[in-house]
């Protein structure tokens, strides 16, 4: 084992979606800066969009939608708990990013006049832009990385951030998961873009790596930001998605909806008005599964053969292209068969719900010099395009920040402590297998954190997590690859514990299924119209506290506020959850 050191102006951690854009834009703004991009896989193909993307879920394109409309829609969809300034920062830069990507060769659907072919999937406005040839997104971005001269370090898993004595960011420590070396990167500014905490819950299949998110996104960034002293936000607002059962990938409403596909129950009846992914929609979906009206299906078998072929030409080619062979294996065909759907395991994801590292409209976290972008940051419902826009914001702001600071010093202790934590599993002669500890941890996440969130269950969950924390000292790894998996288990455990604590703290129900607490079944705006935040206290234990929702740029009318509460088509006899108290 060797310890290598590298010095850079700007360090970007995570080469998926937000990270490459942050690195490219930082380098473009200040070509004399050194910009280093680390990825635990290979930046050419890493991250959530390894096989591209089938649509932009939140395009704000002049003539189709305005930034103000979009900010209102997301405010309502996220039950009011948003920092509108961040949503607005995205919305006003959305179209520029589409045009930038278009110029890089990323293909978006256009109509016969050459205009972007925007579709309506959201409850209120039209923001969905299909990408029938969206499989080449990563390729187009990687070309820009090479062209502009960003330095890429692959197979490097960042494990901890370096913090200066004055608490500003000083760099990061990374494990070379092939050579088994440790890399110390000193930097003036760091952009964290490591994606969602996608390996938190265990998929219903029981297969550890059959997650909705790319399983390489294990929540590393949440854990690193937390241990560096950054504030995490909305960890009680879980990500839960409606997915193809067992396959555990999207079907996907954004693709099939505009072509006439929709979700039905076992009786063949529609039960939700809008297939846009929101907590309220997921609650109705879950109720249908639990009510005896399930299973729930995606219905496409009423569509013309040519329409189904167009859908297949998107779904079976981009984003999760193995969907086609999954259906084939079960002898299922969209033309004649309904596609059985289920709900995903829980995760943390700013891009889909709102659980992430707190950032302001400049992508700044609460730690000076540390930025967050993409699924990792808490900008609600930000998706792929929002990740790119916040990557751009972060990269450019980081350049300005780095201009004004010298390279921070850091305590050698941090490196020594990390060397011990990361490499200890290699020195043990006997011990637990990382995959076994991970399985037990994530099974307990399902048992105790999966909504409905029952107070007593979450308390028991915390006891189990504490026991598993002591088990971390007994994991044995056979090689550097298993060291990476072990360090991921550490991160997953941090995410599980913090998600449980944030969920217990918010004593109301909100965001439909994402935070449905039967012990507190009503939404309570009087006491809980607030963010719930987590940070590491001086005693090393998590501190949970409120952060006020900043004043709205665009106030929401009373009449609009509950638009997402009424997604069920037929009146339901069930108690309405997340409604106003």
């Amino acid at each position, binding site marked *: 084992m060797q310890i290598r050191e590298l010095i850079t102006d700007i360090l970007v951690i995570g080469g998926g979606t937000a990270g490459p854009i942050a690195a490219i834009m930082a380098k473009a703004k200040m070509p004399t800066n050194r910009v280093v991009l680390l990825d635990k896989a290979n930046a050419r193909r*890493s991250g959530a969009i390894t096989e591209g993307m089938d649509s932009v879920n939140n395009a704000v394109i002049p003539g189709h939608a305005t930034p103000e409309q979009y900010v209102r829609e997301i405010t309502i969809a996220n039950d009011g708990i948003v920092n509108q300034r961040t949503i607005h920062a995205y919305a006003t830069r959305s179209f520029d990013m589409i045009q930038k990507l278009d110029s890089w060769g990323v293909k978006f659907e256009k109509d016969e006049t050459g205009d972007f072919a925007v579709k309506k999937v959201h409850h209120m406005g039209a923001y969905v832009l299909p990408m029938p040839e969206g499989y080449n997104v990563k390729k187009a971005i990687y070309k820009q990385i090479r062209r502009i001269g960003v330095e890429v370090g692959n197979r490097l898993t960042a494990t901890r951030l370096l913090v200066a004595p004055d608490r500003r960011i000083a760099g990061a420590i990374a494990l070379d998961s092939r050579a088994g070396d440790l890399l110390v990167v000193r930097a003036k500014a760091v952009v964290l873009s490591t994606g969602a905490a996608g390996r938190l819950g265990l998929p219903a299949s029981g297969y550890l790596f059959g997650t909705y998110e790319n399983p390489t996104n294990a929540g590393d960034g949440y854990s690193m930001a937390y241990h560096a002293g950054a504030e995490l936000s909305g960890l009680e607002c879980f990500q839960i998605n409606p997915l193809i059962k067992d396959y555990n990938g999207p079907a996907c409403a954004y693709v099939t909806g505009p072509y006439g596909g929709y979700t039905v129950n076992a009786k063949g009846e529609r039960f939700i008005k809008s297939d846009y992914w929101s907590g309220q929609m997921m609650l109705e979906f879950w109720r249908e599964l639990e009510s005896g009206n399930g299973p729930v299906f995606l219905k496409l078998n009423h569509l013309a053969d040519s329409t189904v072929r167009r859908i297949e030409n998107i779904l079976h080619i981009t984003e999760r292209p193995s969907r086609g062979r*999954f259906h084939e*294996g079960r002898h299922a065909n969209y033309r004649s068969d309904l596609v059985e759907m289920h709900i995903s395991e829980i995760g943390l994801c700013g891009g889909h719900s709102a659980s992430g590292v707190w950032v302001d409209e400049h992508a700044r976290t609460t730690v000076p010099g540390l930025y967050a972008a993409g699924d990792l940051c808490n900008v609600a419902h930000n998706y792929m395009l929002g990740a790119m826009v916040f990557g751009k914001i972060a990269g450019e702001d980081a350049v300005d920040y780095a201009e004004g600071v010298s390279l921070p010093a850091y305590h050698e202790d941090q490196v020594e402590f990390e060397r011990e934590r990361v490499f200890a599993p290699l020195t043990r002669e006997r011990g637990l297998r990382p995959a076994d500890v991970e399985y037990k941890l994530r099974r307990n996440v399902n048992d105790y954190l999966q909504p409905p969130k029952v107070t007593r269950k979450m308390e028991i969950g915390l006891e189990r997590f504490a026991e598993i924390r002591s088990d971390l000292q007994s994991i044995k790894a056979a090689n550097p690859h298993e060291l990476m998996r072990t360090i991921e288990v550490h991160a997953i455990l941090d995410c599980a514990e913090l998600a449980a604590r944030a969920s217990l703290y918010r004593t109301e129900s909100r965001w439909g299924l994402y935070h449905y607490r039967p012990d507190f079944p009503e939404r309570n705006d009087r006491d809980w119209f607030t963010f719930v935040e987590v940070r590491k206290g001086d005693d090393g234990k998590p501190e949970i506290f409120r952060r006020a929702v900043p004043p709205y740029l665009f106030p929401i009318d009373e009449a609009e506020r509950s638009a997402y509460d009424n997604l069920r088509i037929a009146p339901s006899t069930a108690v309405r959850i997340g409604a106003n108290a």
Partner: protein
Amino acid sequence: MNGLDQPNVIVDHDKCIAGKGCRACIDACPLDIIAFDEEDGKIKQVHDECWYCLPCENDCPTGAIRVEIPYPVR
């Protein structure tokens, strides 16, 4: 190096050009589960951690890789 007994990333060694230095599938894998065995000169799936995402298959210049849906999910 031990390949998996029941890999779901299937390599056609007649088509594979790893012997000429190609590592496209290894580089493409986000989970780093494919490796080159120096002893027998063959590409192998070495970890049971496949997300069935397909970059390995799509980036292979000779069409030597076929990814099956992992058994628990199939």
